[in-house]
């Protein structure tokens, strides 16, 4: 307990520098701003805003990114409640009752409960990270290369199993992602791979062009083709943010239950926070005394899933911070940002970069406070932003992306690469692929190859080496089990049903 306070104290001393507070605020503000643009989800928001953090020192950059992430999440809730436009799948649930409330003129109430619920969930989940991270990373330091390889493989396959769509397609995305991570100079032998004669590819593909193209551009293109003007019309006015006492009585237990559900499911790779939001909604509906209100503006149907979503978004950081293994596209981009700043993600970060680690943990909480400060008083501003026609917004986003992609390393080639990944992302989307596992595999590809090679070298090529390490065996068996279950038609149908519910 004492060490917990010592750690948090260290974090506060880092996060409470004027500079870092500012980065946290700026991140949350910009994240909400971009995330509130209709049709731009949190992943696209982070991809778009990632480059502006590269000017900062690593700690400041991560703090700002975390702020951007929470801001983007809340921006997504705004569009879900006010416009019935979910920025990502996890806020689909929020649209059900949140938008119903907005149509009844209770938009302010829904937004306030969403913000305060997210804050409570964020606070609890942050404490959870602070408690769980040190022992976990200590445990992870005893990992052998074989364990690492097996764990990363398990994470990737689990991500494909928990993501919407056919598992076979998810596996294809994993393969493509690992392949793309291999482009460039092979660290072991120094030879060039798949650079296709472009000297600019010798350093490999950057995570910014990849994520920005796959999520940002592809998303804008499909949005534009669906409705050339996305201004969907606001549902009612946001006149006040008052929440009645009766609403609180129903919302508070839902918030706490949502936090519990979301924290646990958020640990799962892939779409943990999506599962959390859906599971929380179903749970609330099941135990409610007024299940008939759900779908017609039940406050618990907003409070629960929003809290679950935010708690899951937070605990998703645990595998990334303690193992260096990202579990979704957002944390994958954070790992990319760490690498750009010269920090190798892994269990050693917590001791080797203790200031960064605890500063980030505390910033997560501060980010949640910022959101309350930014969102509740500034709600009028966000509403006005929602009213800007998309035809004016998207060229601005394009320009921002161009400058962002260019400014990472002042390379015009990166801008072209972004456009290329935009085309690829569009094509993949049309063919029914979900690009999330690709980004995950892209970030994990290089360490996976390295660990596999190291394991093989240490064991002189004996694949039986995996059986000398019980942890690796457990991970591999779990991977195999998932693969068999996912690819067998009978199990696959049950899984599709479970996920689509």
């Amino acid at each position, binding site marked *: 307990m004492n060490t917990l306070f010592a750690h948090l104290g260290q974090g506060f001393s880092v996060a409470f520098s004027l500079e870092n507070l500012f980065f946290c605020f700026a991140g949350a503000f910009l994240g909400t701003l971009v995330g509130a643009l209709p049709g731009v989800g949190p992943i696209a928001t982070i991809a778009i805003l990632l480059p502006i953090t590269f000017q900062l020192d690593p700690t400041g950059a991560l703090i700002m990114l975390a702020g951007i992430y929470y801001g983007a999440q809340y921006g997504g809730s705004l569009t879900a409640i006010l416009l019935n436009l979910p920025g990502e799948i996890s806020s689909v649930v929020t649209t059900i009752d949140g938008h119903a409330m907005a149509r009844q003129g209770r938009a302010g109430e829904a937004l306030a409960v969403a913000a305060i619920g997210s804050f409570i969930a964020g606070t609890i989940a942050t404490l959870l990270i602070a408690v769980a991270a040190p022992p976990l990373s200590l445990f992870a330091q005893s990992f052998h290369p074989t364990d690492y390889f097996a764990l990363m493989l398990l994470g990737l396959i689990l991500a494909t199993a928990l993501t919407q769509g*056919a598992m076979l397609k998810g596996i294809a995305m994993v393969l493509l992602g690992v*392949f793309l991570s291999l482009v460039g100079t092979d660290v072991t032998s120094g030879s060039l791979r798949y650079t296709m004669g472009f000297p600019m590819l010798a350093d490999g593909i950057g995570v910014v062009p990849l994520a920005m193209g796959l999520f940002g551009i592809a998303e804008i*293109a499909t949005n*534009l083709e669906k409705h050339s003007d996305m201004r969907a019309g606001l549902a009612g006015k946001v006149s006040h943010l008052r929440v009645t006492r009766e609403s609180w009585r129903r919302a508070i237990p839902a918030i706490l239950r949502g936090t519990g559900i979301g924290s646990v499911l958020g640990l799962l790779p892939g779409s943990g926070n999506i599962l959390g939001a859906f599971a929380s909604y179903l749970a609330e509906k099941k135990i409610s005394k007024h299940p008939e209100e759900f779908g017609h503006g039940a406050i618990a149907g907003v409070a629960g899933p929003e809290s679950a979503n935010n708690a899951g978004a937070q605990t998703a950081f645990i595998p990334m911070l303690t193992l260096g293994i990202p579990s979704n596209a957002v944390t994958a981009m954070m790992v990319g940002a760490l690498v750009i700043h010269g920090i190798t993600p892994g269990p050693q970060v917590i001791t080797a970069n203790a200031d960064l680690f605890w500063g980030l943990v505390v910033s997560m909480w501060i980010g949640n406070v910022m959101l309350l400060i930014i969102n509740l008083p500034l709600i009028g501003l966000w509403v006005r932003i929602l009213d800007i026609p998309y035809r004016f917004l998207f060229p601005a986003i394009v320009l921002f992306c161009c400058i962002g992609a260019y400014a990472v390393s002042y390379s015009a080639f990166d801008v072209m690469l972004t456009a290329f990944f935009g085309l690829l992302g569009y094509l993949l989307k049309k*063919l*029914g692929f979900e690009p999330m596992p690709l980004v995950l595999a892209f970030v994990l590809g290089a360490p996976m190859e390295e660990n596999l090679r190291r394991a*093989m070298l240490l064991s002189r090529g004996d694949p039986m080496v995996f059986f000398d390490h019980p942890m690796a065996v457990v991970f591999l068996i779990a991977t195999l089990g998932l693969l068999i279950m996912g690819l067998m038609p009978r199990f696959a149908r049950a899984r599709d049903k479970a996920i689509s519910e």
Partner: protein
Amino acid sequence: MSAPESDTPEKNRIGLRDVAAGLFLLAAGIAIAIAALDLNLGTPVRMGSGFLPLGIGVLLCVVGVALLLGGLLHGGAGLPAFPTLRPLAALTFGFAAFAVLIGPGGLVLAGFAGIFLASFGTQQKSVVETAIFAVVLSAVAAVLFVVLLDLPLRLWPTL
């Protein structure tokens, strides 16, 4: 993350979307595997730079064939609809114009060209409106990024 193109695809007797997806993966897998053969494959003990890529190429082919067969035998969604390629083309040209112009032309020119071309992604603006909008927006970007954020970008073309 937005939902995949169609959440509840109408089920056709032949799933052309999966057939196309399978062919795409097959082509990618073959290309990757063939190129891997030019690299040093090495042995399982000392894996060369081509070892993993070859494996990935082969696995992509396997997954591609499985998807293709699944689409042929079990049916599924039909070919995806491409209502208009205009937005995608406009965005791509916008990025390309920015990439070409940012070096020699500076931020103002590249920004203007990028915004101007990308704006054609929607049909709802007149050319004049688009041009004015592009001028204003690139000026704002110049002030924001170069003057305020101090990015080392040139504003104007060098003569």
